């Protein structure tokens, strides 16, 4: 049998657009068209169950797409028919509004045949799956209820058979109980009744007289009034029935229905004023189910033929009950009885004809779906909405988004990761495939993993910086920020990790520039005093006894020079000195200007002290011809590591003393500290 093509409704005020879409889809679907929102709604209401999908434009006269969505939601049509927006307007506001009003998807223009077909196909498929699921659950529920009902029917039939009662007493009690309970559910929400509970209570009601099995037949079927003793024996049927059910706790799956049955059995002869039996409970101490069955039992007894009385009319029965002739009942129950009173007989008639439709299985299955572990449709759609928003915003943002799920062991990166860094869009079995991420070294990656594992629910965020080569070949600094997401177990575990990769190159470069600014003398770009000290101390710590030279240098008569030739000349001299120094040391050595006209030079890892002496000679000679215009000389004081001392302060002090001596001896020379100590 050829499967009928699904029906699609296309709503757009432009004939051209409808024609386009229709042409694209007519091979696989039947098409209906509407030119504005009003027409669309009419068609929808007429053919609700047949429409598989709606393609909806936003801008239309009379009623726009948003209005259509709102109407559909109100009329509960959105749950049955998926809507795909087809609009010209793909501004983020418009898209968001559509989704929040309940649209299932969004197709942009210009229309692409393949995309349109696929989206429609997928959307319809998804919705059908959901519908099938709901139907499956409803079927299961109906099965279960039917099984329950069957079993109880059998039991009750046995009891009734012995009772000699006719007229389907048990069935009627179930029906009346159910109708009463439904009315109470509506009128008195404080009882917090649910459809499931009503089903259970009504089924349980059928067992209310099960205790009568133990009552001797002569008493059960005595046509006249019972003696006091006989009545006493009769009254035991409620306690006995409850005991029987109680004893079944270990034998059967003792669920809610059984508990209700036990309560009903024991207390369906109690009365509101406490004058019932067997326990003399009064008021709200009597469980609701027992109260309702009590009332149903009385009503049915009045309106049916019994061995000891003829059937009374519906009105007579109601009056007798209201007048308290059958005992006192909960005033709320009486109100409920009054409300449904007129329709009771009809309903009994209807329901007894359709025994298998005793309960609203649709409602029960809805309730089941709403319970804790299973999500309601509304929740599912809310989650879908959030996911869509998230994906959409992630795509808009300028950063690379990371999403790793522990249970599936899959990591995904947003598209930007691919275009900028060549990251794969997703990697399965990530733990075994770490090498798929080629951006950072394996060690760095393992290190990152460990840091993530070391996070806690309170301290869940880590940041690391890496220098990475981008797709364009240039390397840049990136910051990776990761946050671990935790389960709600007693001992929480990581269930996913999210984060982003940001390009921080500009900031990094800027910071490096600022750092170097802080470390260096602005004029000469040699180190300043503080950073020189730090560096030299660092070198000394790692020196391991390898000889080092510490030179304290200053320009002879600098102040006089400055005063005579001006500051600009002075600056030139300083620059020249710095240049000479730089040209005569290695990268690993330290040269600093520590104030005015004073400099420090530290040369590390010299082979021996003799070599040191040669070095000093060489450096001193480099200052032979500082400026052409004028003769300028320098004085140097030298201390040796480790021979003269091992600490920065020491070496500085000695070099300083040596310099002082050089000045005293007439300047333009260098002095070794050991020569004066």
């Amino acid at each position, binding site marked *: 049998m050829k499967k009928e093509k699904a029906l699609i409704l296309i709503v757009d005020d432009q004939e051209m657009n409808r*024609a386009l879409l229709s042409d694209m889809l007519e091979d696989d679907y039947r098409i209906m068209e509407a030119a504005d929102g009003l027409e669309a709604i009419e068609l929808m209401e007429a053919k609700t169950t047949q429409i598989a999908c709606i393609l909806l434009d936003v801008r239309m006269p009379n009623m726009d797409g948003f209005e259509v969505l709102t109407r559909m939601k109100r009329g509960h049509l959105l749950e049955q028919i998926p809507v795909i927006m087809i609009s*010209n307007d793909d501004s983020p506001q418009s898209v968001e509004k559509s989704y929040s009003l309940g649209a299932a998807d969004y197709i942009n223009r210009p229309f692409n045949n393949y995309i349109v077909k696929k989206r429609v196909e997928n959307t319809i498929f998804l919705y059908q799956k959901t519908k099938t699921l709901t139907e499956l659950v409803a079927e299961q529920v109906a099965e279960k209820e039917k099984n329950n009902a069957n079993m109880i029917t059998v039991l009750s039939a046995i009891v009734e058979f012995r009772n000699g009662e006719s007229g389907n007493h048990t069935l009627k009690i179930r029906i009346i109980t159910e109708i009463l309970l439904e009315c109470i559910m509506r009128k008195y929400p404080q009882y917090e009744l649910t459809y499931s509970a009503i089903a259970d209570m009504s089924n349980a009601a059928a067992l209310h007289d099960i205790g009568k099995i133990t009552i001797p037949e002569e008493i059960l079927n005595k046509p006249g009034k019972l003696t006091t003793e006989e009545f006493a024996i009769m009254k035991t049927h409620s306690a006995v029935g409850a005991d029987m059910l109680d004893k079944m706790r270990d034998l059967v799956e003792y669920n809610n229905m059984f508990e209700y049955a036990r309560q009903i059995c024991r207390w369906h002869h109690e009365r509101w004023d406490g004058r019932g039996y067997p326990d003399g409970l009064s008021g709200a101490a009597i469980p609701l189910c027992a109260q309702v069955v009590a009332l149903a039992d009385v009503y049915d007894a009045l309106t049916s033929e019994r061995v000891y009385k003829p059937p009374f009319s519906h009105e007579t029965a109601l009056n007798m009950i209201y007048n308290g002739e059958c005992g006192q009942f909960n005033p709320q129950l009486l109100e409920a009885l009054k409300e449904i009173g007129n329709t009771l007989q009809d309903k009994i008639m209807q329901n007894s004809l359709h025994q298998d439709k005793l309960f609203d299985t649709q409602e029960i299955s809805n309730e089941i779906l709403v319970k804790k572990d299973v999500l309601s449709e509304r929740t599912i759609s809310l989650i879908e909405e959030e996911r869509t928003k998230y994906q959409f915003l992630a795509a808009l943002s300028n950063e690379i988004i990371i999403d790793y799920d522990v249970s599936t062991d899959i990591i995904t990166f947003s598209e930007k990761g691919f275009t900028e860094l060549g990251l794969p869009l997703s990697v399965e079995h990530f733990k075994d495939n770490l090498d798929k991420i080629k951006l950072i070294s394996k060690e760095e990656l393992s290190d990152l993993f460990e840091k993530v594992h070391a996070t806690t629910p309170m301290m869940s965020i880590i940041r690391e910086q890496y220098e990475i080569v981008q797709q364009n070949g240039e390397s840049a600094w990136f910051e990776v920020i990761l946050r671990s997401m935790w389960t709600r177990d007693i001992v929480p575990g990581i269930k996913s990790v999210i984060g982003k990769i940001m390009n921080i190159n500009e900031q990094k470069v800027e910071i490096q520039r600022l750092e170097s600014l802080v470390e260096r003398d602005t004029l000469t770009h040699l180190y300043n005093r503080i950073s020189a000290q730090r560096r030299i101390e660092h070198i000394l710590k790692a020196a391991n006894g390898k000889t080092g030279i510490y030179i304290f240098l200053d320009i002879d008569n600098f102040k006089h020079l400055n005063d005579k030739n001006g500051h600009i000349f002075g600056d030139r001299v300083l620059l020249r000195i710095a240049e000479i120094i730089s040209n005569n040391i290695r990268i690993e050595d330290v040269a600093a200007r520590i104030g005015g006209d004073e400099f420090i030079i530290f040369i590390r890892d010299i082979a021996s002290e003799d070599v040191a002496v040669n070095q000093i000679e060489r450096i001193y000679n480099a200052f032979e011809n500082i400026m052409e215009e004028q003769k300028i000389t320098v004085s140097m004081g030298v201390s040796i590591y480790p021979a003269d001392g091992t600490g920065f302060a020491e070496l500085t002090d000695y070099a300083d003393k040596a310099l002082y001596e050089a000045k005293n001896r007439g300047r333009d020379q260098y002095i070794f500290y050991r020569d004066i100590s």
Partner: protein
Amino acid sequence: MGIWWANYIVTKEMESEGMELTEFYNAINVDVNVVIGRLGLTERHLKKYLGKFRNNQEFNKMSKAVEEKDYTNVEWAAHTLKGVASNLGLNLLQGTCQQMVDSVRSGNTDEIEALYKIVAVDYEKVMGLLAQVEFDE
């Protein structure tokens, strides 16, 4: 039998002087195959839509709205025209219409007149070219 029909066919071909779709699209710098590929339909379909497009009222509505300074309707007309243009691959029209829509939305109504002139030029060009295309009526 003789090829008496050959003349007939040759004459027929010489008679039709209308532009083909490829030429039309070339004239507006669009690759017709891209448009057809995207629509997943045939050249015949595309011709049908272009034929319908010739009768569209949107430009007239836009003109009227611009004259009456009815900016809401200017936006509406531009928006609709843009949508149709984009579907049919009339890219040059699509661009200017989008700018028109953006202008109205951002409240920059002084630009409207100027933009309208540009739209008009593009529109005339497209319509002019369309008039030369051979449509099977």
